[in-house]
């Protein structure tokens, strides 16, 4: 696999030269492979949002470089929009950015800015709408008369319609009920698999990360603390806890069970896998 996102000594300092000077990220070196599903975690103020806004050129680094597909994105500042189409970024509460009078027009905003032909725009809009399971009738409605969860899916479709190679989402499930959350995460997973896209998902839910991500990026105090597989990251539970981060609840339970001599793997990250193991143990003991 080849590297799609690479950063080199990337730093960003807010209000440089004033008393409010503060480094939001410091000397970040990252290599993210194509097709990876990366969960990004870190507590508030750890630099997650600043980092992801550098990856599509919304923020310009104070120092250091960002490479997308091997190209330095700030080599020609006039062409920065090209990278915004390649790296789609969905902000927190993206439904507040909707503005058109119909859902269809709103989703087509991105593709239209790309300068595509009408037929291609139409194809992209319908494809994106299908991804987030919007009905044909909804496309002609005003985005302002939809429910919260629907609005959020429209906003995500607006980014997916640009068919970015890299899709970055900043807490896409904040404020949604469990059903809405599972639905959106499932749709993102499907985009990841069908388009062979690279996905970065910022989330506070370790359960969601364990379930969907293949790798985890842990940010702490403006720096990358860890970038490794889910297993490797969650096996360092105590370090994570000292940073104010959790490991999935089910992992903690399995760990404590294992400590008490029950033959269950301490590296269990999903409820399904725990269930299978426990049922297996019970069967061996002859419980039905």
């Amino acid at each position, binding site marked *: 696999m080849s590297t799609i996102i690479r950063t080199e000594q990337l730093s960003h300092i*807010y*209000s440089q030269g004033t008393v409010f000077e503060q480094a939001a990220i410091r000397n970040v070196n990252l290599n993210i492979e194509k097709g990876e599903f990366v969960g990004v975690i870190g507590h508030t103020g750890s630099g997650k949002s600043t980092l992801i*806004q550098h990856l*599509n050129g*919304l923020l310009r680094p104070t120092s250091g470089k960002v490479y997308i597909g091997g190209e330095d994105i700030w080599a020609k500042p006039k062409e920065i*929009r090209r990278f*915004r*189409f390649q790296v*789609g*970024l*969905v*902000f927190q509460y*993206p439904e*507040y*950015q*909707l*503005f058109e009078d119909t859902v269809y027009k709103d989703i087509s*905003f*991105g593709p239209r*800015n*790309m300068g595509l032909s009408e037929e291609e725009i139409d194809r992209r809009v319908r494809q994106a709408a299908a991804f987030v399971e919007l009905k044909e009738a909804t496309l002609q409605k005003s985005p*302002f008369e939809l429910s919260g969860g629907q609005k959020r899916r429209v906003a995500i479709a*607006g*980014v997916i319609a*640009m068919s970015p190679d890299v899709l970055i989402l900043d807490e896409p499930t904040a404020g949604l009920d469990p059903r809405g959350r599972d639905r959106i995460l499932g749709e993102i997973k499907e985009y990841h698999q069908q388009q062979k896209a690279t996905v970065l998902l910022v989330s506070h839910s370790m359960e969601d990360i364990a379930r969907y991500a293949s790798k985890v990026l842990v940010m702490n105090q403006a720096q990358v603390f860890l970038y490794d597989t889910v297993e490797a990251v969650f096996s360092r539970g105590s370090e994570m806890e000292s940073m104010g981060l959790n490991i999935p609840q089910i992992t903690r339970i399995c760990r404590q069970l294992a400590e008490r001599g029950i033959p269950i793997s301490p590296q269990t990250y999903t409820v399904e896998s725990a269930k299978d193991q426990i049922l297996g143990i019970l069967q061996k003991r002859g419980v039905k």
Partner: protein
Amino acid sequence: MALTDISIGQYFPGDSPVHRMDPRMKLVLTLVYVVMLFLAGNFSSLAMGIILLLVVYPLSRIPLTLILKSVKPIVPIVLFTGILNMFFVKGDPLWTLGFLSISREGLRMAALLALRILCLIAGTSLLTYTTSPIALTDGIEQLFSPLKKLGAPVHEIAMMMTITLRFIPTLIEETDKIMSAQKARGADLESGGLFQRMKALLPILIPLFVSAFRRAEELALAMECRCYHGGEGRTRMRTLRLGTVDVLAALLVAAFLASTIFFSVAGAG
């Protein structure tokens, strides 16, 4: 991030004698100061205005850089009016080039005007630097409360001012966020002709207005939940009281006003 760097009318918290003054007294004295600047017709009386600033600014412990920052945006206006005055005030010419001529009176007038405007800005920014917006509107409300007898909705206007001031930073932040989100979808805000640029603003203005209305509705609801019903019979957590600092400040300003009038009438310089 340039949007969040704006500092016009910003409040800088502190615990100086100037910060502790009653906002009503500060408002009145600022007004007196403005009047004083316009009464000053010559350099010696205007010097009183400058000296007063030199006394009060160190007391307020506002950093020097902030004063410069507040004065910076009006420098072009000062230069422009100064230059106009220099050429258009008639008197004995010092220097002539064709129809342009600079007179002694013109130079004097230009310098007076420039100094007066600079003092005006520095003096009035001291008020906003040392008074929180809430205290300021409280002060305005109480100063204008006699108008309630004439049926003017003084409390409601003050509440609207408070809410407006409170939401300026919030809406600036919101604008920043929406701009980023639309740029992420490839919105081009920098190029194109005037019409194209105005059209490019729509994707930012519409969500901004929608969210302003949403916030207004939420705030109104939250206020009603806490039984807000206007100014009638409302008491305050912090009642405004005049203290020693206020009396001292009033005497100080009065002394400077008297000397300004004296020098102005005496006409020296």
